């Protein structure tokens, strides 16, 4: 019988997430309670050895990986068993119940803390990977609100093909900001990015931040003469921007226009050549 496939699958099923949360919660309770009991029951030497073991495992985990820490964790756990057996054999009048209790307590404390950190660490590693993927997929520059370099180039390819088909002109406007030490003025980039977006035909023209301090606008169906009208519009809007001296800002800006070609690769080279 045909079974309908679930197309609305979540990346991580809820049940898995819940199990992980409960597990960390349960381990935390076990860890706290057993450490507290251990602080009273275990001797100073036992407790310090435990502490050293936990720290060593964490250091291995941080320096190498969670998998490497499993090796040291199992060595400690099995080594402890061997030590207890040997100790019991060598000492005839040993209190075996006490010995086993101490070993169990030691192992519980050690394992619970190691598992908590290992679980959180694995989650953190996943998060870092997801963030890296998100950055790659990001289309909008978070500072200025315009397209990122990669997204601008891919949009430019589509626009160039469209204008070539329609046999229309197109032009680029380059806006560069010159700063002391060549640093990136985030506030100015945000203000200029917003102003450009307010000055162009959204959904028709495209704007991207192609370098630290460079914006590129691609205007469809517009030659360089008409592009100068857009430049004036941007500058007028910046003049009226609150808290800003537009006249002074102009001194730190370089604005010019260039015609776009009908070849996307040539256009990409133009953009790269004029990006700071």
């Amino acid at each position, binding site marked *: 019988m045909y079974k309908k496939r679930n197309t609305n699958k979540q990346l991580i099923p809820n049940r898995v997430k819940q199990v992980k949360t409960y597990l960390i919660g349960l381990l935390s309770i076990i860890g706290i309670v057993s450490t507290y009991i251990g*602080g009273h029951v275990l001797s100073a030497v036992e407790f310090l050895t435990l502490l050293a073991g936990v720290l060593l495992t964490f250091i291995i985990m941080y320096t190498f990986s969670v998998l490497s820490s499993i090796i040291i964790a199992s060595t400690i756990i099995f080594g402890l068993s061997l030590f207890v057996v040997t100790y019991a054999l060598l000492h005839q009048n040993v209190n075996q119940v006490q010995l086993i209790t101490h070993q169990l307590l030691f192992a519980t404390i050690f394992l619970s803390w190691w598992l908590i950190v290992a679980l959180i660490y694995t989650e953190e590693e996943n998060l870092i990977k997801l963030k890296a993927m998100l950055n790659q997929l990001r289309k909008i520059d978070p500072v200025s609100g315009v397209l990122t370099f990669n997204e601008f180039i891919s949009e430019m390819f589509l626009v160039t093909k469209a204008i070539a088909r329609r046999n229309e002109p197109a032009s680029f406007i380059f806006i560069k900001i010159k700063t002391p030490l060549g640093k990136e003025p985030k506030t100015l980039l945000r203000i200029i990015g917003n102003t450009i977006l307010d000055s162009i035909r959204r959904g028709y023209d495209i704007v991207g931040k192609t370098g630290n301090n460079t914006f590129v606008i691609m205007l469809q169906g517009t030659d360089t003469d008409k592009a100068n009208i857009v430049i004036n519009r941007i500058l007028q809007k910046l003049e009226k921007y609150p808290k800003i001296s537009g006249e002074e800002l102009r001194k730190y800006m370089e604005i010019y226009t260039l015609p776009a070609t009908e070849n996307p690769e040539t256009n990409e080279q133009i953009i790269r050549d004029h990006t700071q």
Partner: protein
Amino acid sequence: MIAMLFIKALSWLFYFIVVAFWVIMFYYTILGIFGIIYKVETMEQEPNIPSYFPSVAVFIPAHNEEVVIFETLDAMASLEYEGPMNIYLLNDNSTDRTGDIADFWANIFVNIHHVKVPPGEPKGKSRVLNYGRHISYEEVIAVYDADNRPNPDAVKLLVYKLMENEKYGGVAGYYRSYNMYKTILTTMIGLESLLYQLTMQSGRWKLLKLGSFPGTNMMIKRHVLDEIGGWDEYALAEDAEQSLALTARGYLIAIEPRSQSWEQEPEKFSVWFRQRTRWMLGNLYLVQKTIATKEYRSGRNLWNAIQLISVYYVFFTFVILSDIWFVLGLLGIFSAGTHLPLLTLWFESWWIYATQLIVAAFLEGELTPKNIIIATIMYFTYAQAWLVILANAWIQQWKARRKGHTIKWDKTPRF
């Protein structure tokens, strides 16, 4: 007989030390709990928007800060506030490109001003801030260090808090480290600052209505500043000094954890050591002043005075004595009070310190496996360095007093 009496007296002394340790531990645990309550309460509440927005002056004292000042002024340019606000970069005779960078921002933003502070003595942050006070007119003054990058809402949140109550003479926000994960040292400093703000700022405010200025991301009413005569130009820890002066006049310093600014922490041990020694010297100067000035040890300030003296003198003596006691015990020369719960005390000290660090990191979204590990080792490493710094500060203070010198303000290098 005399030897017996001596050992008995020592035993009693150590018993007293153990009890004193317990008291301090208890106090800090309670502060931690109250800090958590205040922090959670604040994060769940919306800020009270005032009906009147006073004019604000933001002071940024700077001396040779070209490494960091561009980003600082960039963050300042993004500050949001409903009322009038002016940002003053107080350039204290910089010889690097600090001035050029300040001009770049001041030319573009009409509310950013590059102020060249004339040379003068004594050198330091307080004199520069006092100059700023004389050339500005705004009703409230905010102070940021030259490496700070406040969140866009940092200043307005400070104003909202300040306007909540007439008795609030000033307000202090939180500071965070933007280079917290650069080195192990910066991570430790970052965690310690989170713990300090949780216990000593939020905790003390919730429990005792006491707060203190952190020297950055802070705000003070101009009339209150005039009343206390501005900043003490000879104080090395001008912020702590000002906090006592304000409290002595019956004003409160409120804490606003939602207002956050990001600063740079020393990345090298030597730089950190010098910076902390200067802070320590500032606090020792303050202890002297507290003992000499009646109003600094009465009323609400009494608690501040007890804490200052107990931390910088009594507690330090206890720790040194207990260390001697421990070494003598190890060598078998002297063993006192085997009935004392030393291991438990030691374990609980570490446990409480590490747990508080972890909770503080959690509350600020900084709980990572690496931070958990570092929090567990900080008691044996970072916290112990405090003793060396305090001893160094004592020696420097004693040398300066013997030679009749004034200890000079020392700028923290940037990275």
